[in-house]
């Protein structure tokens, strides 16, 4: 319970410290920002180690199912002296078989880490090359299939469908289908670079840009919506932490912080501070 109440106070402090940036750039904000940078780096590192490297790499190199007294597990036991939490006695039991081919990604990974040294800078390239190659192969297919071929399919509208009304505002209709067809084709033509956008072609591409603008308008509306939602979520949390069971953390932190910031502004009045942000 103490952990929870203390946590609430920490959370409230950090929240207000970030919000204080709206007033001006100040030490509270800078502290919170730096804590954020540090904590998130450590957080990701631990998270990825325990969900990937330990179970899926070490778990395949030294699975408990193949545990024996040979040299291979001798190496493992040696590691175990340093950290019995990462390398528990008797091999790692994550349900994997022994796969020595995983020494390849292990080696690439170690090379990536060694690239921190200036002289071995290029060591990272092999790992990056693997990542790039793998992503390129996967993405080329995925994007071509879902973003191109299936979108072509989605744009092939039925002209001959007796059940479809000609006009209907909200349901499917011939008119709405045509809007999609015309918008998609003209939009694609707008991104045509090897032809001057003049004359009739220019008129067509103008239609295309109008469709793009409507789409950006919708993106804009949704972006505003999302940002407001996040703010609502933040305030809801702050209201929760203002509960008596958290000793009214929100209001206390707010009052103290405003007092300190106000005081510092008051005393700084004479200095020509040009820290604009």
């Amino acid at each position, binding site marked *: 319970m103490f952990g929870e109440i203390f946590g609430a106070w920490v959370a409230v402090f950090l929240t207000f410290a970030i919000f204080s*940036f709206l007033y001006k*750039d100040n030490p509270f904000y800078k502290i919170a*920002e730096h804590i*954020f*940078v540090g904590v998130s780096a450590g957080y990701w590192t631990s998270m990825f180690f325990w969900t990937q490297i330990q179970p899926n790499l070490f778990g395949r190199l030294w699975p408990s199912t193949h545990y024996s007294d040979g040299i291979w597990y001798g190496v493992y036991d040696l590691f175990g002296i340093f950290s019995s939490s990462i390398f528990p006695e008797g091999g790692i039991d994550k349900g994997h078989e022994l796969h020595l081919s995983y020494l390849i990604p292990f080696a690439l990974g170690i090379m990536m880490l060694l690239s921190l040294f200036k002289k071995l800078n290029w060591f990272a390239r092999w790992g*990056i090359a693997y990542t790039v190659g793998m992503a390129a192969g996967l993405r*080329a*297919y995925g994007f*071509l*299939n879902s973003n*191109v*071929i*299936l979108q*072509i*399919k989605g*744009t*092939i*509208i*039925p*002209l*001959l*469908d007796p059940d479809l009304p000609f006009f209907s505002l909200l349901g499917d209709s011939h008119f709405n289908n045509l809007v999609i*067809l015309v918008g*998609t*084709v003209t939009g*694609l*033509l707008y*991104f*045509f*670079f*090897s*032809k*001057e*956008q003049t004359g009739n072609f220019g008129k067509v591409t103008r239609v295309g840009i109008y469709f*793009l*603008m409507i789409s*950006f*308008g919708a*993106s*804009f509306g949704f*972006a505003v919506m999302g940002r407001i939602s996040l703010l609502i979520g933040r305030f809801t949390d702050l209201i929760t932490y203002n509960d008596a069971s958290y000793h009214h953390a929100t209001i206390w932190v707010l009052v103290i912080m405003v007092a300190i910031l106000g005081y510092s502004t008051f005393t700084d009045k004479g200095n020509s501070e*040009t*820290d*604009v*942000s």
Partner: protein
Amino acid sequence: MNDRDFIIGAGGVTFSFLIYWFMGHPFFIIERIVMFIAIMTFTGTLLFYIRKARRGEEIFLREIPGLKAVEEAVGRSTEMGKPVLFVPGIMDMDQVETVAGVIVLGHVSKMTARYETTLNVPVSRAIVMKAAQDVCKESYLMEGRPDMFHEDMVHYLTDEQFAYAAGVNGIMVREKPAACMYMGKFYAESLILAETGNSIGAIQIAGTASQAQIPFFVTACDYTLIGEEFFAASAYLSQRPELIGGIKGQDMIKVIIIGMIIGGVVLRFLHDGGMIDFNILEFLTVR
């Protein structure tokens, strides 16, 4: 690689595939044949135009208004005696957009060298800083003004998104650049940058492919290079044949796609009308 080698290579691949095919194509997932054809056709188109460009054939690219405005903006800064600010996005060099932004920077720095205008490039990644410095140095050398180049024109602020945005804002408010350019990958900070630039009355030109950020740039900047336009911009300015050829190749793929859409509508019409058996929708369904 000359033409003969290319044709021999391409022909060899096609020939061996045909042999494989007529041997009963073991292990081939036949349901995905459409994708296979698409990949082969599109790759072929791309390669064809890249090679064409490399051979030195003239390839026409239309003018992009935002790009023309770049030179005007630099000119205006010169007249007013104010600096030019260039922001190459907040992501690292592994993003295609950052690379494109740095290539554009190369051309902007050539202009500032020519006009003797101050250039200011705050960056948020160490690797981008190195790359941007190299590019600017090269441009100033090529314009014969190495005396005007100093490494600090490209400077690192911080990796953290909002801290970086705040830093750039500070620069804008203090130095009041007459032209601000945002070319690269942007996230939520796009809005903060464009708003501040707007409030100091600078000419603003943006270029990005981040769809969610384009609206903020379109509304707050004078010119915006949208999505593909931005990639084309780097090809356009760089004049590197493989990039220009690639743009032309992508244009041709677009022609194929539009042809497929319109042809598909016709085929569907014929199918629905009972005139042909071929069902285009089924054909395009890949499992």
